[in-house]
Protein backbone atom coordinates (compact mmCIF):
# COMPACT_ATOMS: atom_id res chain seq x y z
CA UNK A 1 0.00 0.00 0.00
CA UNK A 2 1.18 3.46 -0.80
CA UNK A 3 2.03 5.29 2.37
CA UNK A 4 -0.22 8.28 1.80
CA UNK A 5 -3.59 6.53 1.86
CA UNK A 6 -2.66 4.52 4.92
CA UNK A 7 -1.87 7.53 7.07
CA UNK A 8 -4.16 8.57 9.88
CA UNK A 9 -5.76 12.00 9.69
CA UNK A 10 -3.60 13.14 12.62
CA UNK A 11 -0.36 11.99 10.98
CA UNK A 12 -1.32 13.34 7.55
CA UNK A 13 -2.11 16.69 9.19
CA UNK A 14 1.33 16.83 10.83
CA UNK A 15 3.11 15.90 7.62
CA UNK A 16 1.12 18.34 5.51
CA UNK A 17 2.11 21.01 8.01
CA UNK A 18 5.78 20.03 7.67
CA UNK A 19 5.50 20.17 3.89
CA UNK A 20 6.33 16.47 3.34
CA UNK A 21 3.61 16.38 0.69
CA UNK A 22 0.78 18.61 -0.52
CA UNK A 23 -2.98 18.32 -0.18
CA UNK A 24 -3.11 17.84 -3.95
CA UNK A 25 -0.76 14.83 -3.72
CA UNK A 26 -2.75 13.36 -0.85
CA UNK A 27 -6.04 13.84 -2.70
CA UNK A 28 -4.65 12.47 -5.98
CA UNK A 29 -3.50 9.33 -4.17
CA UNK A 30 -7.04 8.79 -2.90
CA UNK A 31 -8.65 9.55 -6.25
CA UNK A 32 -6.42 6.97 -7.97
CA UNK A 33 -7.28 4.41 -5.34
CA UNK A 34 -11.03 5.09 -5.60
CA UNK A 35 -10.92 3.72 -9.15
CA UNK A 36 -9.21 0.55 -7.93
CA UNK A 37 -11.89 -0.09 -5.33
CA UNK A 38 -14.90 0.95 -7.38
CA UNK A 39 -16.26 -2.61 -7.21
CA UNK A 40 -17.10 -2.00 -3.55
CA UNK A 41 -19.73 0.52 -4.75
CA UNK A 42 -18.91 2.71 -1.75
CA UNK A 43 -19.46 5.99 -3.60
CA UNK A 44 -22.70 6.97 -5.33
CA UNK A 45 -21.12 10.14 -6.75
CA UNK A 46 -17.35 10.62 -7.07
CA UNK A 47 -16.21 14.22 -7.42
CA UNK A 48 -12.51 13.93 -8.34
CA UNK A 49 -12.21 17.28 -10.18
CA UNK A 50 -13.85 19.22 -7.38
CA UNK A 51 -11.63 17.36 -4.90
CA UNK A 52 -8.42 18.31 -6.70
CA UNK A 53 -9.60 21.92 -7.00
CA UNK A 54 -10.42 21.98 -3.28
CA UNK A 55 -7.01 20.48 -2.50
CA UNK A 56 -5.28 23.21 -4.54
CA UNK A 57 -7.22 25.84 -2.63
CA UNK A 58 -6.20 24.11 0.59
CA UNK A 59 -2.51 24.18 -0.32
CA UNK A 60 -2.92 27.87 -1.10
CA UNK A 61 -4.52 28.57 2.29
CA UNK A 62 -1.67 26.73 3.99
CA UNK A 63 0.87 28.83 2.12
CA UNK A 64 -0.91 31.89 3.47
CA UNK A 65 -0.79 30.52 7.00
CA UNK A 66 -4.53 29.96 7.24
CA UNK A 67 -4.64 26.20 7.80
CA UNK A 68 -7.78 24.84 9.49
CA UNK A 69 -8.09 21.84 11.79
CA UNK A 70 -8.58 19.37 8.93
CA UNK A 71 -6.63 21.31 6.30
CA UNK A 72 -6.16 19.24 3.15
CA UNK A 73 -7.67 16.02 4.55
CA UNK A 74 -9.70 14.07 1.93
CA UNK A 75 -12.99 12.81 3.35
CA UNK A 76 -16.06 11.01 2.02
CA UNK A 77 -19.52 12.42 2.70
CA UNK A 78 -22.52 10.18 3.32
CA UNK A 79 -25.03 10.92 0.58
CA UNK A 80 -27.56 12.04 3.18
CA UNK A 81 -25.83 15.41 3.66
CA UNK A 82 -26.95 18.15 1.29
CA UNK A 83 -23.97 19.43 -0.68
CA UNK A 84 -24.38 22.54 -2.77
CA UNK A 85 -24.48 21.75 -6.46
CA UNK A 86 -23.55 18.09 -5.95
CA UNK A 87 -26.22 15.42 -6.39
CA UNK A 88 -27.67 14.28 -3.06
CA UNK A 89 -29.79 11.16 -3.32
CA UNK A 90 -30.25 9.58 0.15
CA UNK A 91 -29.73 6.43 -1.99
CA UNK A 92 -33.29 6.80 -3.25
CA UNK A 93 -34.70 6.97 -6.77
CA UNK A 94 -37.02 9.68 -5.54
CA UNK A 95 -34.06 12.06 -5.14
CA UNK A 96 -31.98 10.95 -8.12
CA UNK A 97 -30.54 14.04 -9.79
CA UNK A 98 -31.45 16.34 -6.88
CA UNK A 99 -28.84 19.09 -6.58
CA UNK A 100 -29.18 20.99 -3.30
CA UNK A 101 -28.87 24.76 -3.54
CA UNK A 102 -27.28 24.91 -0.11
CA UNK A 103 -24.75 23.09 2.03
CA UNK A 104 -25.54 21.18 5.25
CA UNK A 105 -24.12 22.77 8.38
CA UNK A 106 -21.90 19.78 9.17
CA UNK A 107 -20.32 19.62 5.70
CA UNK A 108 -19.99 23.41 5.69
CA UNK A 109 -18.06 23.18 8.96
CA UNK A 110 -15.82 20.44 7.57
CA UNK A 111 -15.08 22.60 4.51
CA UNK A 112 -14.39 25.58 6.73
CA UNK A 113 -11.86 23.42 8.62
CA UNK A 114 -10.11 22.78 5.30
CA UNK A 115 -11.33 19.24 4.54
CA UNK A 116 -11.55 18.09 0.93
CA UNK A 117 -14.63 16.12 -0.19
CA UNK A 118 -13.94 13.12 -2.43
CA UNK A 119 -17.60 12.46 -3.14
CA UNK A 120 -20.89 11.17 -1.81
CA UNK A 121 -21.02 7.78 -0.12
CA UNK A 122 -23.59 5.03 -0.53
CA UNK A 123 -26.05 4.14 2.23
CA UNK A 124 -29.29 2.32 2.84
CA UNK A 125 -32.18 4.18 1.22
CA UNK A 126 -33.04 7.15 3.46
CA UNK A 127 -30.68 5.54 6.02
CA UNK A 128 -33.22 2.76 6.63
CA UNK A 129 -31.34 -0.49 6.92
CA UNK A 130 -28.53 -2.35 8.63
CA UNK A 131 -26.76 -3.88 5.65
CA UNK A 132 -26.57 -1.22 2.93
CA UNK A 133 -28.62 -3.52 0.70
CA UNK A 134 -31.65 -1.20 0.42
CA UNK A 135 -29.79 1.43 -1.64
CA UNK A 136 -31.37 2.21 -5.00
CA UNK A 137 -27.80 2.44 -6.32
CA UNK A 138 -26.91 -1.14 -5.42
CA UNK A 139 -25.39 -2.73 -2.33
CA UNK A 140 -21.99 -1.84 -0.90
CA UNK A 141 -19.47 -4.62 -0.50
CA UNK A 142 -17.45 -4.92 2.71
CA UNK A 143 -13.70 -5.03 1.91
CA UNK A 144 -13.33 -7.65 4.67
CA UNK A 145 -13.69 -11.33 3.69
CA UNK A 146 -14.36 -14.53 5.60
CA UNK A 147 -11.20 -16.63 5.80
CA UNK A 148 -13.33 -19.72 5.19
CA UNK A 149 -15.11 -18.27 2.14
CA UNK A 150 -13.13 -15.39 0.61
CA UNK A 151 -15.40 -15.26 -2.46
CA UNK A 152 -18.54 -14.52 -0.44
CA UNK A 153 -19.48 -10.83 -0.54
CA UNK A 154 -20.21 -9.50 2.93
CA UNK A 155 -22.30 -6.47 3.85
CA UNK A 156 -20.54 -3.43 5.38
CA UNK A 157 -23.44 -2.89 7.79
CA UNK A 158 -25.73 0.07 7.55
CA UNK A 159 -26.96 2.53 7.07
CA UNK A 160 -23.56 4.30 6.79
CA UNK A 161 -22.18 1.30 4.87
CA UNK A 162 -20.46 3.26 2.10
CA UNK A 163 -18.76 5.43 4.73
CA UNK A 164 -17.48 2.42 6.68
CA UNK A 165 -16.33 0.50 3.61
CA UNK A 166 -14.55 3.57 2.16
CA UNK A 167 -12.65 4.28 5.36
CA UNK A 168 -11.68 0.60 5.78
CA UNK A 169 -10.54 0.35 2.14
CA UNK A 170 -8.53 3.58 2.46
CA UNK A 171 -10.51 5.39 -0.22
CA UNK A 172 -11.28 8.12 2.32
CA UNK A 173 -9.28 9.10 5.40
CA UNK A 174 -12.51 9.58 7.27
CA UNK A 175 -16.18 9.95 6.48
CA UNK A 176 -19.33 11.49 7.81
CA UNK A 177 -22.03 9.14 8.99
CA UNK A 178 -25.43 9.53 10.52
CA UNK A 179 -26.90 7.35 13.21
CA UNK A 180 -30.60 6.90 13.97
CA UNK A 181 -30.52 3.45 15.62
CA UNK A 182 -26.93 2.34 15.11
CA UNK A 183 -26.12 3.49 11.58
CA UNK A 184 -22.62 4.74 12.50
CA UNK A 185 -21.67 2.20 15.14
CA UNK A 186 -22.83 -1.09 13.54
CA UNK A 187 -21.08 -0.47 10.18
CA UNK A 188 -17.97 0.72 12.04
CA UNK A 189 -18.00 -2.61 13.89
CA UNK A 190 -18.54 -4.62 10.66
CA UNK A 191 -15.68 -2.82 8.86
CA UNK A 192 -13.11 -2.67 11.67
CA UNK A 193 -13.08 1.12 12.10
CA UNK A 194 -14.00 3.68 14.77
CA UNK A 195 -17.27 5.60 14.72
CA UNK A 196 -19.04 7.80 17.20
CA UNK A 197 -22.66 8.88 17.39
CA UNK A 198 -22.42 12.02 19.49
CA UNK A 199 -25.07 13.15 21.96
CA UNK A 200 -28.33 14.16 20.28
CA UNK A 201 -27.95 17.89 19.67
CA UNK A 202 -24.14 17.93 19.45
CA UNK A 203 -24.10 18.24 15.64
CA UNK A 204 -26.58 20.27 13.65
CA UNK A 205 -29.11 18.29 11.64
CA UNK A 206 -29.65 21.19 9.24
CA UNK A 207 -29.24 20.04 5.66
CA UNK A 208 -29.22 16.33 6.52
CA UNK A 209 -32.04 14.44 4.79
CA UNK A 210 -34.36 13.65 7.69
CA UNK A 211 -35.36 10.11 8.66
CA UNK A 212 -36.45 10.16 12.33
CA UNK A 213 -35.81 13.63 13.66
CA UNK A 214 -35.82 12.82 17.38
CA UNK A 215 -33.08 10.23 16.80
CA UNK A 216 -30.98 11.35 13.78
CA UNK A 217 -27.48 12.52 14.65
CA UNK A 218 -24.37 13.03 12.53
CA UNK A 219 -20.97 11.75 13.55
CA UNK A 220 -17.48 10.92 12.28
CA UNK A 221 -16.12 7.57 11.11
CA UNK A 222 -12.36 7.09 10.83
CA UNK A 223 -9.58 4.59 11.47
CA UNK A 224 -8.48 5.81 14.89
CA UNK A 225 -10.08 7.28 17.99
CA UNK A 226 -7.99 10.43 17.66
CA UNK A 227 -9.08 10.90 14.03
CA UNK A 228 -12.74 10.72 15.09
CA UNK A 229 -12.02 13.31 17.79
CA UNK A 230 -10.38 15.62 15.25
CA UNK A 231 -13.32 15.29 12.88
CA UNK A 232 -15.89 15.84 15.62
CA UNK A 233 -14.04 19.01 16.65
CA UNK A 234 -14.91 20.40 13.24
CA UNK A 235 -18.43 18.92 12.91
CA UNK A 236 -19.90 19.78 16.32
CA UNK A 237 -21.35 23.03 17.56
CA UNK A 238 -24.51 25.01 18.01
CA UNK A 239 -26.45 26.04 14.91
CA UNK A 240 -29.38 28.42 15.05
CA UNK A 241 -30.82 26.68 11.98
CA UNK A 242 -31.47 23.48 14.00
CA UNK A 243 -33.62 24.24 17.03
CA UNK A 244 -32.56 20.96 18.68
CA UNK A 245 -28.87 21.74 18.30
CA UNK A 246 -27.42 22.29 21.76
CA UNK A 247 -26.05 25.72 22.71
CA UNK A 248 -23.13 24.08 24.50
CA UNK A 249 -19.45 24.82 24.07
CA UNK A 250 -17.46 22.25 22.10
CA UNK A 251 -14.32 21.08 23.91
CA UNK A 252 -11.17 19.97 22.08
CA UNK A 253 -12.06 16.28 21.92
CA UNK A 254 -8.55 15.25 20.88
CA UNK A 255 -7.21 16.58 24.18
CA UNK A 256 -9.46 14.12 26.02
CA UNK A 257 -7.16 11.26 24.99
CA UNK A 258 -5.03 11.41 28.11
CA UNK A 259 -4.54 7.66 28.47
CA UNK A 260 -5.51 7.88 32.14
CA UNK A 261 -8.68 6.04 33.18
CA UNK A 262 -7.63 5.08 36.70
CA UNK A 263 -10.59 4.86 39.07
CA UNK A 264 -13.16 5.23 36.30
CA UNK A 265 -16.27 3.12 36.86
CA UNK A 266 -17.33 1.12 33.81
CA UNK A 267 -20.86 -0.32 33.76
CA UNK A 268 -21.33 -3.82 32.35
CA UNK A 269 -25.06 -4.31 31.69
CA UNK A 270 -26.36 -7.82 32.31
CA UNK A 271 -29.10 -7.40 29.68
CA UNK A 272 -26.51 -7.17 26.87
CA UNK A 273 -25.50 -10.79 27.50
CA UNK A 274 -28.69 -12.53 26.35
CA UNK A 275 -28.86 -16.31 26.11
CA UNK A 276 -27.51 -17.22 22.70
CA UNK A 277 -25.01 -14.34 22.43
CA UNK A 278 -22.20 -15.69 20.27
CA UNK A 279 -19.18 -16.95 22.22
CA UNK A 280 -16.88 -14.85 20.06
CA UNK A 281 -18.70 -11.63 20.81
CA UNK A 282 -18.86 -12.48 24.52
CA UNK A 283 -15.13 -13.23 24.50
CA UNK A 284 -14.19 -9.91 22.93
CA UNK A 285 -16.39 -8.14 25.45
CA UNK A 286 -14.71 -9.96 28.36
CA UNK A 287 -11.34 -9.07 26.87
CA UNK A 288 -12.40 -5.42 26.75
CA UNK A 289 -13.30 -5.53 30.44
CA UNK A 290 -9.85 -7.00 31.22
CA UNK A 291 -8.11 -4.19 29.28
CA UNK A 292 -9.98 -1.58 31.26
CA UNK A 293 -9.18 -3.31 34.57
CA UNK A 294 -5.52 -3.49 33.63
CA UNK A 295 -5.59 0.27 33.03
CA UNK A 296 -7.01 0.91 36.48
CA UNK A 297 -10.73 1.23 35.73
CA UNK A 298 -13.32 -0.53 37.84
CA UNK A 299 -15.96 -2.71 36.16
CA UNK A 300 -19.38 -2.52 37.81
CA UNK A 301 -22.26 -4.90 37.07
CA UNK A 302 -25.34 -2.85 36.19
CA UNK A 303 -28.88 -3.50 35.02
CA UNK A 304 -30.76 -1.72 32.25
CA UNK A 305 -34.07 -3.56 32.70
CA UNK A 306 -36.02 -1.94 29.85
CA UNK A 307 -33.45 -2.98 27.20
CA UNK A 308 -35.67 -5.69 25.76
CA UNK A 309 -38.31 -3.15 24.81
CA UNK A 310 -35.93 -0.80 22.99
CA UNK A 311 -36.25 -2.51 19.60
CA UNK A 312 -40.07 -2.58 19.48
CA UNK A 313 -40.14 1.01 20.78
CA UNK A 314 -37.76 2.08 18.02
CA UNK A 315 -39.85 0.36 15.36
CA UNK A 316 -42.84 2.46 16.34
CA UNK A 317 -41.12 5.80 16.84
CA UNK A 318 -38.72 5.70 13.87
CA UNK A 319 -41.37 4.69 11.27
CA UNK A 320 -43.82 7.22 12.73
CA UNK A 321 -41.31 10.04 12.33
CA UNK A 322 -40.24 8.73 8.91
CA UNK A 323 -43.82 8.71 7.63
CA UNK A 324 -44.09 12.40 8.57
CA UNK A 325 -40.66 13.41 7.27
CA UNK A 326 -41.02 11.57 3.97
CA UNK A 327 -44.41 13.13 3.26
CA UNK A 328 -42.46 15.93 1.56
CA UNK A 329 -41.55 13.65 -1.38
CA UNK A 330 -44.66 14.25 -3.42
CA UNK A 331 -43.36 15.06 -6.89
CA UNK A 332 -44.18 18.76 -6.60
CA UNK A 333 -41.15 20.77 -5.46
CA UNK A 334 -38.15 18.51 -6.08
CA UNK A 335 -37.22 14.96 -6.92
CA UNK A 336 -39.03 12.38 -9.02
CA UNK A 337 -42.44 13.09 -10.55
CA UNK A 338 -44.55 10.36 -12.13
CA UNK A 339 -47.47 11.89 -14.02
CA UNK A 340 -50.99 11.13 -12.83
CA UNK A 341 -54.56 11.95 -13.80
CA UNK A 342 -55.14 13.91 -10.61
CA UNK A 343 -52.98 15.43 -7.91
CA UNK A 344 -53.54 12.44 -5.60
CA UNK A 345 -52.85 10.07 -8.45
CA UNK A 346 -49.54 11.83 -9.09
CA UNK A 347 -48.62 11.58 -5.39
CA UNK A 348 -49.47 7.87 -5.26
CA UNK A 349 -47.61 6.96 -8.44
CA UNK A 350 -44.58 9.12 -7.64
CA UNK A 351 -44.18 7.66 -4.16
CA UNK A 352 -44.76 4.08 -5.35
CA UNK A 353 -42.09 4.42 -8.03
CA UNK A 354 -39.65 6.52 -6.01
CA UNK A 355 -39.46 4.64 -2.71
CA UNK A 356 -37.96 1.18 -2.35
CA UNK A 357 -39.59 -1.71 -0.53
CA UNK A 358 -38.14 -1.14 2.96
CA UNK A 359 -38.92 2.58 2.87
CA UNK A 360 -42.51 1.95 1.70
CA UNK A 361 -42.95 -0.63 4.46
CA UNK A 362 -41.75 1.79 7.13
CA UNK A 363 -43.91 4.64 5.85
CA UNK A 364 -46.95 2.36 5.96
CA UNK A 365 -46.20 1.18 9.52
CA UNK A 366 -45.63 4.78 10.58
CA UNK A 367 -48.84 5.94 8.93
CA UNK A 368 -50.75 3.20 10.70
CA UNK A 369 -49.37 3.79 14.22
CA UNK A 370 -50.11 7.51 13.90
CA UNK A 371 -53.61 7.06 12.51
CA UNK A 372 -56.76 7.98 14.41
CA UNK A 373 -57.72 5.30 16.89
CA UNK A 374 -54.27 3.69 17.08
CA UNK A 375 -52.09 6.62 18.15
CA UNK A 376 -52.37 5.99 21.90
CA UNK A 377 -51.95 2.22 21.65
CA UNK A 378 -48.77 2.48 19.62
CA UNK A 379 -47.09 5.89 19.45
CA UNK A 380 -47.98 7.27 22.89
CA UNK A 381 -47.17 3.89 24.46
CA UNK A 382 -43.79 3.84 22.72
CA UNK A 383 -43.01 7.37 23.94
CA UNK A 384 -43.68 6.22 27.51
CA UNK A 385 -41.45 3.18 27.17
CA UNK A 386 -38.82 5.44 25.62
CA UNK A 387 -38.76 7.43 28.85
CA UNK A 388 -38.24 4.20 30.83
CA UNK A 389 -35.27 3.35 28.59
CA UNK A 390 -33.76 6.80 29.12
CA UNK A 391 -34.39 6.51 32.89
CA UNK A 392 -32.51 3.18 32.95
CA UNK A 393 -29.41 4.93 31.64
CA UNK A 394 -29.84 7.94 33.92
CA UNK A 395 -29.99 5.59 36.92
CA UNK A 396 -26.93 3.67 35.76
CA UNK A 397 -24.94 6.88 35.34
CA UNK A 398 -25.51 7.69 39.00
CA UNK A 399 -22.98 4.96 39.78
CA UNK A 400 -20.87 4.51 36.65
CA UNK A 401 -18.99 6.90 34.33
CA UNK A 402 -19.26 4.93 31.12
CA UNK A 403 -20.87 1.70 29.89
CA UNK A 404 -19.16 -1.03 27.84
CA UNK A 405 -21.12 -3.42 25.57
CA UNK A 406 -20.65 -5.24 22.28
CA UNK A 407 -21.61 -3.08 19.27
CA UNK A 408 -23.44 -5.77 17.31
CA UNK A 409 -24.46 -9.35 18.07
CA UNK A 410 -22.54 -10.76 15.08
CA UNK A 411 -19.70 -9.93 12.69
CA UNK A 412 -20.56 -8.87 9.12
CA UNK A 413 -22.94 -11.25 7.38
CA UNK A 414 -23.22 -12.10 3.69
CA UNK A 415 -25.24 -10.13 1.13
CA UNK A 416 -28.59 -11.89 0.92
CA UNK A 417 -28.51 -13.25 4.46
CA UNK A 418 -31.06 -12.01 7.03
CA UNK A 419 -33.31 -10.59 4.34
CA UNK A 420 -36.35 -12.87 4.58
CA UNK A 421 -37.81 -11.26 7.66
CA UNK A 422 -37.39 -7.56 8.49
CA UNK A 423 -37.52 -8.25 12.23
CA UNK A 424 -34.51 -10.61 12.03
CA UNK A 425 -32.57 -7.93 10.15
CA UNK A 426 -33.48 -5.36 12.79
CA UNK A 427 -31.90 -7.49 15.55
CA UNK A 428 -28.54 -6.25 14.30
CA UNK A 429 -29.22 -3.01 16.09
CA UNK A 430 -30.31 -4.50 19.39
CA UNK A 431 -27.23 -3.15 21.24
CA UNK A 432 -27.15 0.28 19.60
CA UNK A 433 -30.83 1.28 19.59
CA UNK A 434 -31.22 1.83 23.37
CA UNK A 435 -28.47 4.49 23.30
CA UNK A 436 -30.22 6.25 20.42
CA UNK A 437 -33.57 6.17 22.20
CA UNK A 438 -31.92 7.90 25.18
CA UNK A 439 -30.05 10.40 22.97
CA UNK A 440 -26.71 9.41 24.51
CA UNK A 441 -23.30 9.35 22.84
CA UNK A 442 -22.05 5.91 21.71
CA UNK A 443 -18.68 4.99 20.21
CA UNK A 444 -17.69 1.77 18.48
CA UNK A 445 -14.09 0.69 18.13
CA UNK A 446 -12.54 -2.48 16.68
CA UNK A 447 -11.53 -4.86 19.46
CA UNK A 448 -10.63 -8.11 17.76
CA UNK A 449 -11.30 -10.60 14.98
CA UNK A 450 -13.74 -13.47 14.79
CA UNK A 451 -12.34 -16.96 14.16
CA UNK A 452 -13.30 -16.39 10.53
CA UNK A 453 -11.15 -13.26 10.36
CA UNK A 454 -13.84 -10.57 10.64
CA UNK A 455 -13.70 -7.47 12.86
CA UNK A 456 -15.74 -7.29 16.06
CA UNK A 457 -16.48 -3.97 17.70
CA UNK A 458 -17.11 -2.87 21.26
CA UNK A 459 -19.39 0.02 22.17
CA UNK A 460 -18.83 2.67 24.83
CA UNK A 461 -21.88 4.63 26.00
CA UNK A 462 -21.54 7.91 27.88
CA UNK A 463 -23.47 10.57 29.74
CA UNK A 464 -25.12 13.32 27.67
CA UNK A 465 -22.47 15.64 26.19
CA UNK A 466 -19.65 13.63 27.75
CA UNK A 467 -18.05 12.46 24.52
CA UNK A 468 -14.72 13.29 26.15
CA UNK A 469 -14.96 10.32 28.51
CA UNK A 470 -15.79 8.07 25.55
CA UNK A 471 -12.72 9.29 23.67
CA UNK A 472 -10.53 8.91 26.76
CA UNK A 473 -11.64 5.32 27.43
CA UNK A 474 -11.64 4.42 23.73
CA UNK A 475 -8.07 5.69 23.43
CA UNK A 476 -6.94 3.35 26.21
CA UNK A 477 -8.82 0.40 24.68
CA UNK A 478 -7.41 1.15 21.22
CA UNK A 479 -3.87 0.95 22.59
CA UNK A 480 -4.65 -2.30 24.39
CA UNK A 481 -6.42 -3.86 21.40
CA UNK A 482 -3.58 -2.90 19.04
CA UNK A 483 -5.91 -3.70 16.13
CA UNK A 484 -3.64 -3.87 13.09
CA UNK A 485 -5.49 -6.32 10.86
CA UNK A 486 -6.33 -5.13 7.34
CA UNK A 487 -9.06 -6.19 4.94
CA UNK A 488 -7.98 -8.42 2.07
CA UNK A 489 -6.36 -6.50 -0.76
CA UNK A 490 -6.01 -3.34 1.35
Amino acid at each position, binding site marked *: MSALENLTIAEAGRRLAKGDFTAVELTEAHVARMARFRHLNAYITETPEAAIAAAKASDERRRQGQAGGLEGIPLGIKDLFCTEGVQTTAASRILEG*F*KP*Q*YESTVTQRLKAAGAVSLGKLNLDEFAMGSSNTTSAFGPVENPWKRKSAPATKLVPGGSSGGSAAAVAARIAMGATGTDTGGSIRQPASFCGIVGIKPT*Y*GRCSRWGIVAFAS*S*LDQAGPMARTVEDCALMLNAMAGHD*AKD*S*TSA*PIAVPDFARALTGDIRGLKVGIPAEYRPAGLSDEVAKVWDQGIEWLKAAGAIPVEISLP*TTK*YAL*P*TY*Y*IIAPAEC*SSNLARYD*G*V*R*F*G*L*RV*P*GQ*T*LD*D*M*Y*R*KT*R*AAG*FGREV*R*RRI*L*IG*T*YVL*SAGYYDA*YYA*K*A*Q*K*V*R*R*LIADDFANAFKTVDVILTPTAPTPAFAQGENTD*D*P*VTMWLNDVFTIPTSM*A*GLPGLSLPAGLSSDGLPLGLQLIGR*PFDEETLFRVAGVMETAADFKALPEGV
Partner: protein
Amino acid sequence: MSLDKKAVRSIAELARIEVPEDELESLAGELSNILSFVEQLAEANTDGVQPMTSVAAMTLPWRADVVNDGGYPTKVLANAPEPVTLDEGGFFTVPKVVE
Protein backbone atom coordinates in the same frame (compact mmCIF):
# COMPACT_ATOMS: atom_id res chain seq x y z
CA MET B 1 -53.08 -6.79 15.39
CA SER B 2 -53.60 -8.60 12.13
CA LEU B 3 -54.20 -6.38 9.12
CA ASP B 4 -56.32 -7.50 6.18
CA LYS B 5 -56.20 -6.34 2.57
CA LYS B 6 -58.83 -3.70 3.18
CA ALA B 7 -56.87 -2.18 6.05
CA VAL B 8 -53.65 -2.11 4.01
CA ARG B 9 -55.48 -0.48 1.11
CA SER B 10 -56.68 2.26 3.44
CA ILE B 11 -53.23 2.79 5.06
CA ALA B 12 -51.63 3.00 1.61
CA GLU B 13 -54.24 5.58 0.62
CA LEU B 14 -53.45 7.65 3.74
CA ALA B 15 -49.72 7.43 2.88
CA ARG B 16 -50.40 8.24 -0.79
CA ILE B 17 -48.48 5.21 -2.02
CA GLU B 18 -50.02 3.18 -4.83
CA VAL B 19 -50.02 -0.54 -4.02
CA PRO B 20 -51.03 -2.96 -6.80
CA GLU B 21 -54.03 -5.12 -5.84
CA ASP B 22 -52.00 -8.35 -6.12
CA GLU B 23 -49.43 -7.12 -3.58
CA LEU B 24 -51.92 -6.22 -0.86
CA GLU B 25 -52.12 -9.74 0.55
CA SER B 26 -48.36 -10.24 1.04
CA LEU B 27 -47.95 -6.71 2.35
CA ALA B 28 -50.73 -7.36 4.88
CA GLY B 29 -48.72 -10.35 6.10
CA GLU B 30 -45.47 -8.36 6.40
CA LEU B 31 -47.08 -5.46 8.22
CA SER B 32 -48.99 -7.79 10.57
CA ASN B 33 -45.71 -9.51 11.52
CA ILE B 34 -44.13 -6.18 12.35
CA LEU B 35 -47.14 -5.10 14.38
CA SER B 36 -47.19 -8.32 16.40
CA PHE B 37 -43.48 -7.75 17.10
CA VAL B 38 -43.98 -4.21 18.41
CA GLU B 39 -47.07 -5.18 20.37
CA GLN B 40 -44.93 -6.81 23.04
CA LEU B 41 -44.75 -3.27 24.43
CA ALA B 42 -48.26 -3.79 25.82
CA GLU B 43 -46.73 -5.86 28.65
CA ALA B 44 -44.44 -3.00 29.78
CA ASN B 45 -45.89 -1.19 32.78
CA THR B 46 -46.09 2.50 31.91
CA ASP B 47 -48.64 3.58 34.53
CA GLY B 48 -47.97 7.18 35.50
CA VAL B 49 -45.09 7.55 32.98
CA GLN B 50 -45.06 10.78 30.99
CA PRO B 51 -44.47 10.29 27.25
CA MET B 52 -40.97 11.35 26.22
CA THR B 53 -41.43 13.96 23.52
CA SER B 54 -37.91 15.37 23.48
CA VAL B 55 -34.55 13.72 24.01
CA ALA B 56 -32.71 16.82 25.05
CA ALA B 57 -33.41 18.25 28.48
CA MET B 58 -33.69 21.77 27.13
CA THR B 59 -36.35 24.29 26.23
CA LEU B 60 -36.60 25.01 22.56
CA PRO B 61 -35.30 28.46 21.72
CA TRP B 62 -37.59 31.32 20.74
CA ARG B 63 -36.87 33.82 18.03
CA ALA B 64 -38.55 36.93 16.70
CA ASP B 65 -41.31 36.17 14.21
CA VAL B 66 -39.66 37.91 11.30
CA VAL B 67 -38.64 36.90 7.81
CA ASN B 68 -34.96 36.01 8.04
CA ASP B 69 -34.39 34.04 4.87
CA GLY B 70 -35.50 33.96 1.26
CA GLY B 71 -35.38 36.13 -1.83
CA TYR B 72 -33.97 33.51 -4.20
CA PRO B 73 -36.84 32.03 -6.21
CA THR B 74 -34.50 30.62 -8.84
CA LYS B 75 -32.83 28.43 -6.24
CA VAL B 76 -36.19 27.40 -4.81
CA LEU B 77 -37.36 26.27 -8.25
CA ALA B 78 -34.03 24.78 -9.31
CA ASN B 79 -35.02 21.17 -8.61
CA ALA B 80 -38.72 21.44 -9.38
CA PRO B 81 -40.23 19.04 -11.93
CA GLU B 82 -41.85 21.01 -14.78
CA PRO B 83 -41.72 24.43 -13.10
CA VAL B 84 -43.06 27.64 -14.58
CA THR B 85 -39.93 29.67 -15.11
CA LEU B 86 -39.25 32.92 -13.31
CA ASP B 87 -39.91 35.15 -16.36
CA GLU B 88 -43.39 33.55 -16.61
CA GLY B 89 -44.10 34.10 -12.92
CA GLY B 90 -42.09 31.39 -11.20
CA PHE B 91 -44.34 28.57 -9.93
CA PHE B 92 -44.38 24.93 -8.98
CA THR B 93 -46.90 23.05 -11.08
CA VAL B 94 -49.35 20.25 -10.28
CA PRO B 95 -52.03 18.46 -12.31
CA LYS B 96 -55.24 20.46 -12.67
CA VAL B 97 -57.19 20.38 -9.39
CA VAL B 98 -60.08 22.74 -10.19
CA GLU B 99 -62.26 22.22 -13.26
